[in-house]
């Protein structure tokens, strides 16, 4: 099945390693909050074993997601070819999208507060179709802005309107 999502040339360009760190900490933070929210009220109002069960179950899910997030981040890849951009991602729902440069209406870079703390940014390619799945998260800020410059130059050179 790997030939289906193989890169067009040698290898995929991967995301920044900081992204894995960011995602791991987000998993710990989110699930930690959930565990506290589940365990504390049930320890107060329910028998102790309910709280323990909830805590163990949620902790198990957290560990599973923690280990899986590395594979999920590693599944992201992009490749810039002559006329189009290849983008792949996903573990359960794997996909490989191809967007021609001539169809890119705009290239947006956005960076939330957490991403900024890790020096990362998200690049979004805007086409005329809403369903185009063309977002690359977790690139370093310099790589993101260089990618945007390359893509905008390529899109202008090949721009064919709508």
């Amino acid at each position: 099945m790997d030939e289906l999502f193989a890169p067009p040339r040698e290898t995929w360009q991967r995301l920044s390693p900081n992204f894995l760190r960011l995602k791991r900490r987000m998993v710990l933070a989110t699930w930690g909050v959930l565990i506290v929210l589940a365990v504390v009220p049930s320890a107060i109002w329910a028998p102790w074993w309910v709280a323990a069960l909830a805590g163990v179950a949620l902790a198990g899910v957290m560990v599973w997601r923690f280990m899986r997030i590395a594979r999920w981040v590693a599944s992201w890849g992009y490749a810039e070819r002559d006329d189009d951009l290849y983008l792949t991602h996903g573990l359960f729902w794997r996909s490989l999208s191809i967007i021609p440069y001539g169809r890119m209406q705009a290239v947006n870079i956005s960076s939330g507060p957490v991403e900024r703390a890790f020096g990362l940014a998200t690049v979004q390619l805007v086409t005329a179709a809403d369903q185009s799945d063309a977002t690359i998260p977790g690139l370093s800020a310099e790589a993101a802005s260089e990618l945007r410059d390359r893509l905008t130059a390529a899109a202008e050179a090949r721009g064919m309107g709508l």
Partner: protein
Amino acid sequence: MNQLPPERLHPLTPFVKGWVGLLAIVFFVGRSWLENGGRFDVDHVTWWVWILLAAMVGSVLLGLASWRATTFRLDDDALRLATRFIWNTSTVINYSKVQSIDIVSPLAARLVGVCSLRIDVGSGAPHKLEYLGRARAERVRDELARRAALVRDAGRGGTPMAGAATSVRTDDARAVPQQRGALFRSDDVVVSVPPARLVAAVVTSGEFLGSIVFALVALLPSILTRQFVLAGLLVPAVWGLGALVVNRVVKEWDYRLHAPARGVVRVARGLTDTVSQTVPVERVQGFELTQSWLWRRFGWWRVRFTVLGYRGDDADEGGSTVLLPVGSWAEVEAALSAVWPGIDLGSLQWQALPPRARWLHPLDWRQRGWAVNPQVVADRSGRLNRRISLVAPARAQSWAVQQGPLERRLGLSGFSVQISGHVVALNVTGVEPTVARAFAESFSGWVRAALTSRTLFDPASRPVGSCADPALSAAPQRQS
């Protein structure tokens, strides 16, 4: 630039806009006149009728003043609309921005003989010229379309025709050139749908029958429990039925498809409100052909299309997404050829899904199929209600190969093509992975060729056979 004096809209405009109030006045005054045995007795008219009358007279006067202050003019480079009444507004519509021009005639306007012009500039709401006499509106539309085409051709490096844009007044029929010459073919009708067929098709369509079933189901509790108050559940079902009938029959009555000029098709339809809708073919993204199970015995299909800029089914204002409300297969092919000349549905080689895709599509595995060639990509599905989607590489925004967990278990995958709009979508699931990847790679080449050649369908450039990639030319499916 010769400055001709600007033109006015039709003088009956304020009366058409306020027809409801006028009708109310006529009703009440007439009633009190009749009640008094044919004499008009001022004392017997109640006080609120006076207030209504005063309000209506006031608004008619305002409308008249606004009519006097509204002008428009077709200049060298743009259409200029100006209103100098309380608020001064001035709108300049460059000919290069004009995408399409529709003529809409609501019921009240039709009774008087006027109609309104909707000018679509591609972004934002369309501009309206309300109201103009019918013949004058057609002159304005044709002249505007002619100038827009001239500007577009000049912008692409073509040579502008003789008699290029100078200011002209459209209320003089002699000043506007008649539509002759290389730019306009004869205004023939490509397809027309007789009203009887439309009604029969609506009554046998899947949506109508579904609403009837829903109404019967809604009636069931009140029958079983013998409580008639539960028949109130019928109200939404009847409402849905009524809305369907109004939408289909009233809006698509006397449907005619014209091909008046290169690059444009025109749709004329409507029972109470007539609409003449112009669609530039460059903005058509894809087609969807549907056939409900009762229509199969008549061989009827319904064609919808995605037009860039039409938000959903805006059928009231002329932005309908229906190309052909109901037609035979030959009429479908004629309608599609009017929009995409050179498309040949008969040359599509349909490929079947492998047998293990039955787990993915248990109900309609046998009916599913796909066909690709450098001009068009097609996908069909549906057992009871059949559906065929058509997308051209020249209009594709992006395409993708995808694989869900069930497909991975079966060793299959899927491919999809994204176009703008939400009416048509092409998503094929359950094909061999090699086929999907080969499609993605070949599609890149077809999109590049289509974008650089800038023609959508050129029969001369169609390659012999379907496509060069052997992975995509598996054994063709039997015609089912």
